[in-house]
């Protein structure tokens, strides 16, 4: 039984990692007043570029790097639409998501011929941390994970420090509350927002990479499965604070892990039925969590609002 529970917690950390990375990135951007609902697409692009690069170079680290670059590129493009062209953030995000989807489907088939199913022969293996991983029980859970889990966990204090303890973070929070006042106080609003977007691109790109480089060894356009939107929900539930975001990511990651875990427990003819039904669990949990916890959420005052200098 203990082994099962350990595996449940371990899976939870794995399933939480992409959610945590994406929502930490989104948290930073939303602190600066931009609502980026396009991270679903950005994650997909991150998964795509990561997969392609890892496939051709046979080097998973280059895969991660490519995921980051893909993530940054698409998020910056979103930034161009909403900052430079001052377009509606929600519709721009819809466009980004559909475009990312189209790009991935089309270019995947341009690169790999119709009907072929390319795969990466080796996934990222867990990296046990010396000594710590030998601690009984906890060591197995916490210190024998893939690099993505470690990056995700480290991203929490990094984001916290960045938002609350740096000069940049102060400018970011001011921009999110009221960009025109921040501008008058000498803050370079566009620059602050672009930096936030680049950081988000890095995190979201890595989040995309987790799918193709550590969880599955194939690429599919359905691979992100609304994780980006879950990440946005997590930011709301976590009240725009990295620590709260951590809790939210764990909750949703747990829901997903639970659905996988129960699926493996049940044997017999109904197992297929149950595990298919359980696949909706993470989404149901998200909706219910939003119903309960989304009510009095008050984000940065200018979240989603357009800003022009005069």
């Amino acid at each position, binding site marked *: 039984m203990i082994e099962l529970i350990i595996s449940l917690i371990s899976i939870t950390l794995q399933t939480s990692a992409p959610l945590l990375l994406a929502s930490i990135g989104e948290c930073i951007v939303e602190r600066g007043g931009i609502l980026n609902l396009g991270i679903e697409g950005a994650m997909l692009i991150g998964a795509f570029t990561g997969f392609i690069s890892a496939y051709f170079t046979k080097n998973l680290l280059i895969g991660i790097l490519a995921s980051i670059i893909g993530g940054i590129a698409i998020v910056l493009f979103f930034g161009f639409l909403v900052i430079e062209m001052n377009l509606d953030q929600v519709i721009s995000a819809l466009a980004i998501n559909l475009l990312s989807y189209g790009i991935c489907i089309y270019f995947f088939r341009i690169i790999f011929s119709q009907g072929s199913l390319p795969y990466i022969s080796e996934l990222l293996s867990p990296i046990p941390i010396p000594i710590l991983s030998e601690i009984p029980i906890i060591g197995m859970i916490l210190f024998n994970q893939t690099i993505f889990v470690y990056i995700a966990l480290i991203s929490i204090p990094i984001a916290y420090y960045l938002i609350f303890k*740096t000069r940049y973070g102060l*400018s970011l*929070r001011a921009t999110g509350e009221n960009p025109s006042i921040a*501008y008058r106080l000498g803050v370079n609003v566009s620059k602050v927002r672009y930096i936030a977007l680049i950081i988000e691109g890095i995190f979201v790109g890595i989040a995309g990479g987790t799918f193709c480089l550590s969880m599955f060894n194939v690429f599919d356009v359905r691979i992100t499965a609304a994780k980006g939107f879950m990440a946005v929900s997590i930011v709301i539930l976590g009240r725009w604070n990295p620590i709260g975001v951590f809790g939210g990511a764990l909750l949703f990651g747990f829901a997903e892990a639970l659905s996988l875990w129960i699926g493996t427990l049940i044997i017999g003819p109904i197992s297929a039925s149950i595990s298919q039904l359980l696949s909706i669990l993470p989404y149901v949990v998200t909706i219910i969590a939003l119903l309960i916890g989304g009510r009095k959420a008050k984000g940065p005052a200018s979240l989603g609002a357009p800003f022009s200098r005069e």
Partner: protein
Amino acid sequence: MSSQIPSFFSNDIVLHVEGIRKVYPNGVIANDNVTLSVLKGEIHAILGENGAGKTTLVNIIAGCIKPDAGEIYVNGKKVKIDNPRTAIKLGIGVVHQHFILIPTLTVIENIALSLNNSGFRLNLSKVKERIIQLSNLLNLKIDFNTKVEELPVGLKQKVEILRVLCQNANILILDEPTSVLTPIEVEEFFRILRNLKEKGCSIILITHKVKEALSISDRITIMRKGRIIKTLTPKETNEEELSLLIIGEKQNSESISFTNENNNTKKILLSVNNLNVRGDRGELSVKNVSFSLYSGEILGIAGIAGNGQKELVEALTGLRKPESGTIIIMDENVVNKKPKFLIKKGMAYIPEDRIGRGVVLTMSLAENAILKRFEESPFSNKTIMNKNSIMNYAHELIKKFGIIAPNPNIEVSNLSGGNIQRLIVARELSYNAKILIAENPTAGLDVRATDFTHRIFLDLKSKGVGILLISADLDELLKLSDRILVMYNGKIMKEFNRNEYDIYKIAKLMLGIEVN
């Protein structure tokens, strides 16, 4: 017109603007060939009415607005100030009329935000040291870790000045700084200004108050309709001359005759009893307010913005639920009724924020004209709209209210501010309103549009409409109102009948100073 500076002073000119021109997209010429010099260590007042172009000039110097033409020199060097950062770097510190503080951040954070020191880490303790040093100069003793939203207005202003000083500014621009201060605070404030002046700062004081300009400044520049009229020293002029220069030649507006009928013979249209309303942040913004509005009268509410007028209006128009109390319109308690019900009852409303709350910019003039009546005949039969009658009606309004527009299909965003106001007035008055609530109805309008609005109000009054006029413009209130209620800190301080009007008493009450 060039500024009158003796040439031997020129080494001491810290700020010089030359030929500044700014025309807004709606055609208003806010600044027209403005040329002005500010000397080292002087307090230079810029005096003018609301809408004279003072704030535009401030915003141009602060780098918030790009001028269409003109040059700026700081310490003799030509500079291009295309964003606020540049202005801060050049030592120009601006205290805007609307405070530029982020309410959810602390005092220290707000100040740290605008400082140009380098470094990645946010070193608040270093900022705090500097704040404490300079705060003695301002006699400011507060906990600097307080969130700005928790500070009273007067302290917010001090925080603003503190911020500017922390930026090492040597040119201070203060836009209407005394409008939020009590007379006692004003005295102290002036002492601070003189102090700063002695330390070598140059101060530009934007004001519309002649007395203040005379008492504190070394030189006074008068602005009117976007132009510089004259620069004088206080010694060579007096209150009367300045007032004339500010206003310009008299407008030939008809004198307004008042029929001071006894209120007893009139009907009570609106009666508010012990009304309490909470503001956005849960604070009690309207405290135990009671008054009655009679038919055929204009009841003025005087007060400095932010003393509960907004919340009162929102409660009256059905947009905000009162905490307690009653609002009775023609014998019916309308508390908790929706705006739609109140509109049907005959309540018209001219909001202060005309663009944000008065019209839909992206819709046509015709559509805006029927915004409150589209479910009435003949514009619709409740479900289906009747385009012909809407167009006919819009044509009618255009003619009757002198709205300048080629046709009723034009998008409202293409109309000027004055025409938008006419459209709103036209719409609000078109459904035989019995009560009109008007919030700063002439703010930002030119003389013609203002005059037009006033005439309409008096005409309505003669027809028996009750008008509740909420205005920050005391002159407007004195000119139009039959009675004036003074509101301060959410409370009605006192009621004045027309024969008791005393501008100084009212002004003091607006600042919360009790008078006998």
